[in-house]
């Protein structure tokens, strides 16, 4: 192998590597953008996604060949990138995750026509209950429900064991149920129907 060849390989610029990375990028970009959007203001999400893929390109040799595993691996990079963005002693081990505004979601869809229906009430319950969860619980549920990761994949994102993730998921599920029970949705005519939510 010539010196030039070694250099080309070292810098990861071979056409094959580029093609594989391009495939992974295009397959994963929308999901990664969603992952980031839930954790930061949407105007920042594209910049952060770019950071994540740049790190992934530089660590291309570590990119799992399986698409689902690669996706989880990229989420893990995003998670650490976001946590590292929190400075100094304010760094935390979990990120607060937004939930959509139950009212706006309902009005934007067919469900609004059934105002007061079980679905709308359930969404209001969930939005209120979600806001009471710890960031760790939000993170766990978000990975399972919104990102659709299985236990081992979610564990990769968080850098913990699959067993530990399962435990967290169980606790998070219980907490969400408990908080939903504590904050029952009220019909709009109720005096206590303070419509909380997050128009996000």
């Amino acid at each position: 192998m010539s010196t030039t060849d070694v250099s080309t390989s070292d810098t990861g610029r071979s056409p094959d590597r580029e093609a594989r990375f391009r495939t992974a990028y295009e397959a994963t970009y929308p999901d990664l953008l969603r992952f980031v959007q839930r954790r930061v203001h949407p105007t920042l999400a594209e910049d952060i996604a770019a950071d994540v893929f740049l790190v992934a390109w530089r660590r291309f040799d570590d990119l799992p060949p399986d698409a689902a595993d690669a996706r989880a691996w990229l989420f893990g990079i995003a998670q650490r990138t976001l946590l590292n963005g929190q400075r100094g002693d304010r760094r935390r081990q979990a990120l607060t995750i937004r939930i959509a505004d139950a009212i706006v979601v309902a009005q934007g869809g067919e469900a609004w026509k059934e105002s007061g229906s079980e679905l709308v009430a359930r969404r209001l319950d969930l939005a209120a209950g979600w806001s009471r969860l710890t960031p760790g619980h939000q993170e766990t549920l978000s990975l399972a429900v919104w990102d659709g990761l299985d236990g081992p994949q979610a564990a990769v994102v968080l850098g913990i064991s699959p067993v530990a993730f399962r435990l967290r998921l169980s606790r998070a599920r219980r907490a969400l149920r408990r908080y939903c029970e504590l904050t029952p949705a009220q019909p709009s005519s109720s005096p206590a129907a303070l419509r909380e939510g997050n128009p996000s």
Partner: protein
Amino acid sequence: MTPRLHGKDLLDPATSDALRSLDPANVDPQVAAGPRAQETLARILASDVSEPTTTMPVKTGWARGPRRRWVVAGSALVAVGVLIAAPSVLKGKSAVVVPPALGSNTAFASWSPTTKVITPAEAALAGQRCKADQLHLINTAAARKIVGSSQIRLVDRRGAWTMVYLGGGVQPDYGVICLNEYDSHGALLNGGGGGASSGGPGIAPVAPDTVTLFTGVGFSTQSGVTWCVAGQVGSDVVSVVINTIEHGPVEATIQNGYFAAWWPGPGPLPMPQAVSAEPTYTLTLKGGTIRANIPQDQLLPKLR
């Protein structure tokens, strides 16, 4: 993609479906083929891969200076402000007294229990920014209609932070509170917004000698929780003071028939423990009558 719940279903199917529908992320599935994503990809492929991966690239979201530290910087509000147990706080179901010594909310060092005077132009600008932030977060046709038609109820500045209470419009019970920090040139440093309430057609009009509390919101910040309250004032009410656990009396702003105030809560705590004790309210009426220490739950909306 279709979420894959593992093992036993995560939650019951109806709840899982409802939760999926509340995913705040809004991304075009074809976004990767778009010009911005392709431009990013080209830039990445052209980058020098020999640079250490532990160094953040120059063009990161929060490395561009204070304007871009909206969410992720240390003192920023997290995301759009997390609503914490407002129903419970307002209804007194699970109020927990938090000893003040547990921590301080350092993000709001410039906060004061009285408000600062701001010009109408500053208030209008703050309101526009609050609306723009909401539309950034969910920019659907329905949201544009609701947010776009809402009005600025009031603006309340304490130290470097400004709270905006928007509400009304085509969706009468829509409301939102934004809490933002600006630099001396008016550039946004940190902030966020969260859901609120504005009452609605089923709510009785506020009596002249009282206030109706529509909203109690807790914003989760990196250094603690910040509480916001907002509502409508009766025609005889000239002053609203909220007697808080954390800071004693906090004078609310009254504008356009509405009142609102905010105050930093305790330092970081697990959410259940971070739920503050309910404050009481002291109202001053025209003629000097003072209604002191009214429990918060007496000020909740009443049915027509």
